């Protein structure tokens, strides 16, 4: 009964109402917001973490921050973008607690050009995710931030407390590493 009520309410609510409800600490509104964004943000979190359990921890911390800080949302930029940013920052902070390795593996002579793009796109997202999760944490963070989130190397440098040149280098190495991992799945150079 309560579930139906929530779903009905969710469909009727616009973003503004939802935010005001959450600012007022109304658990029902918070639940609607959670249901609306949790799956997408879980997808984001999974990309930065090593396992589902870790990703859920990040998601939990991120939503606590979102509910605590929602009154500071000024309406500048999309609401989803604001939430995504919090999730990304929480994931990075969580990774900070572990050693983020930037050392390259033995990747000599790996070429980044000439891969079968079609074969890659044929791969299931779940497979791609496990490939992404195999990347060392440092590479994964830079790759996620640059290739998927669309941050510039300068912004990444600030976020990870490294220089933008280091970010660029790490990204390049991350890609090389990724290609090597793709080769394991039978995707070879053409």
């Amino acid at each position, binding site marked *: 009964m309560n579930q139906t009520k929530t779903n009905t309410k969710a469909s009727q609510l616009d973003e503004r109402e939802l935010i005001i409800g959450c600012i007022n600490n109304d*658990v029902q509104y*918070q*639940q609607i917001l*959670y*249901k609306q964004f*949790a*799956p*997408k943000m*879980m*997808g*984001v979190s*999974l*990309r930065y973490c090593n396992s*589902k359990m870790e*990703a*859920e921890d990040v*998601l*939990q911390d991120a*939503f*606590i921050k979102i*509910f*605590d800080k929602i009154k500071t949302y000024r309406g500048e930029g999309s609401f989803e973008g604001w939430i995504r940013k919090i999730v990304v920052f929480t994931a990075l902070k969580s990774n*900070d*607690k*572990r*050693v*983020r390795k*930037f*050392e390259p593996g033995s990747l000599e002579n790996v070429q*980044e*050009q*000439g*891969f079968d*793009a079609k074969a*890659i*796109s044929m791969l299931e*997202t779940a497979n*791609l*995710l496990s490939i*992404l999760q195999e990347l060392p944490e440092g590479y994964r963070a830079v*790759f996620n931030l*640059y*290739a*998927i989130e*669309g941050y510039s190397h300068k912004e990444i440098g600030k976020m990870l*407390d490294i220089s933008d040149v280091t970010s660029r280098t790490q990204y390049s190495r991350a*890609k090389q590493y*990724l*290609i090597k991992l793709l080769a394991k799945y039978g995707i070879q150079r053409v």
Partner: protein
Amino acid sequence: MKNEIENIFKQKFYSFEATPSAGLFDTIVAKRAKKKRAIRLWGAAALLITVSTVGIWSYSTKTPEQLTVGTTIDTQQNRNTPTRADKSQGNINGIQETLAKTNQQNYGEEGIKEEVATTKDKRLAKLEAKTPGRQKPTNQKIRTNVNPKNAWADLFVKIDRANPNMDLDKGALYLGNKKQTIDKSTGLHILKGSKTSIPKTPILANTTEDQYSNPTLTKTISTHTKKATEEKSEITAEKGEDIKVSVPLPTGRLVALNKWRLQTSGGIGYASRAISETNKDYINLRNSTESVVVSYQFEANTIYQCSPKWNIQTGLQYTIRNELFEYSKPLYVTEEREVQRTQIIVHPILGEIERSYVETVTDTTSQEVEYTSSQNKFERVSIPIVMERKLYVRQNLSLVAKVGINAGVYSKRVGLLLAINNETQEYTRLPTRKSGINSAMIGLGVLYSITPRVSLLAYPQANLQLNSSTTSNAGFNQNDWGLYSHFGLRIGL
């Protein structure tokens, strides 16, 4: 083609969704509620501490006017043994009431009539009449150079001098709950063990009234001390002459009641760290690459004197542990060079044939060293909670010892270290604690009192970190320790 991989990943992942476990939202709600409760609890604790501090502060800085409650002059004539209730709830409204009682016993009802009838307003009116143009005193605190403690003591002695039958040795002066000892011969107020630090006060007999003199008391003593002067040889006034005494109203704060001190100090020291790791080679390598350089520590503390010997201190401590990281990695440089060689081949028909050819030779021509160095800096801010005890006092010098803990609130590490794989690594990459690095502290120092309020201190102290500055993910524990020599200043409020 180059950006194809990025595009594919972006397409696949930007809108990628996954379902989190059921019940995660309930956990979020529960965690937020718990966090709020914790905030409320801390807020209440902070409020309680603030209120208590303000309460203690205001109690310890009572003005003499407020001291009408809690200030008792007890004489043998009034009672034999002062009780705790008497000390805390003495009801003498200023000195005149005590005088009235004392005089009543010594000189009968008549002697005190005038005095009892006199009110504060009348005294002020008389004062105004005596000194035209004098402004009416307000309730504001009057600050003078007169030591209020001594003023009370002087007054007490005067009572004794004015009342020959009074046995001062069995009397006592209480300021708040604190029993004060009076030196009867000099009229000086003395504290146990600090007799020399009490400045000498001028002899009050025959002095003229100053702007803070109390006409009522002057008159009272003047009227009834004729008899006393004949009997008491200590009084310097001539026989039969009215003794006019100026009794400064105790003004300002009573120093004895203020138990607060401020202390600031800075120190240089020798500080290092201990590493716990099963790989002994790694520890040796770290020890060979990191060396101790001078470190610093600064403290600002508030001190509450619980008793003459014990005090508790808290404030802020800022420590900078410096360390020199030097790592020399052997680097073999190889060089390729071409060598002209000659070979003689013995041919069965042609005989010896000389052949020249060029051969490329790779030589290790030199051995260089890749040198890396860094001035490592570890900063820590912590809140010390310390107990200090006076062990020995001799004149202006005191030997003191302290013991306590430092609760870490912030920590930052900058520099290089050798990682387990023997490669240099930045400290910022090492999973370290930013807060919660706690340490134990012990010290033995000397205090030198320049004045009763101001003391210089020299305080060697040792700090030992109780928990590791690295988290469990680092793979090893690292505990800092340090010996610092502090020099500073302590000021009584």
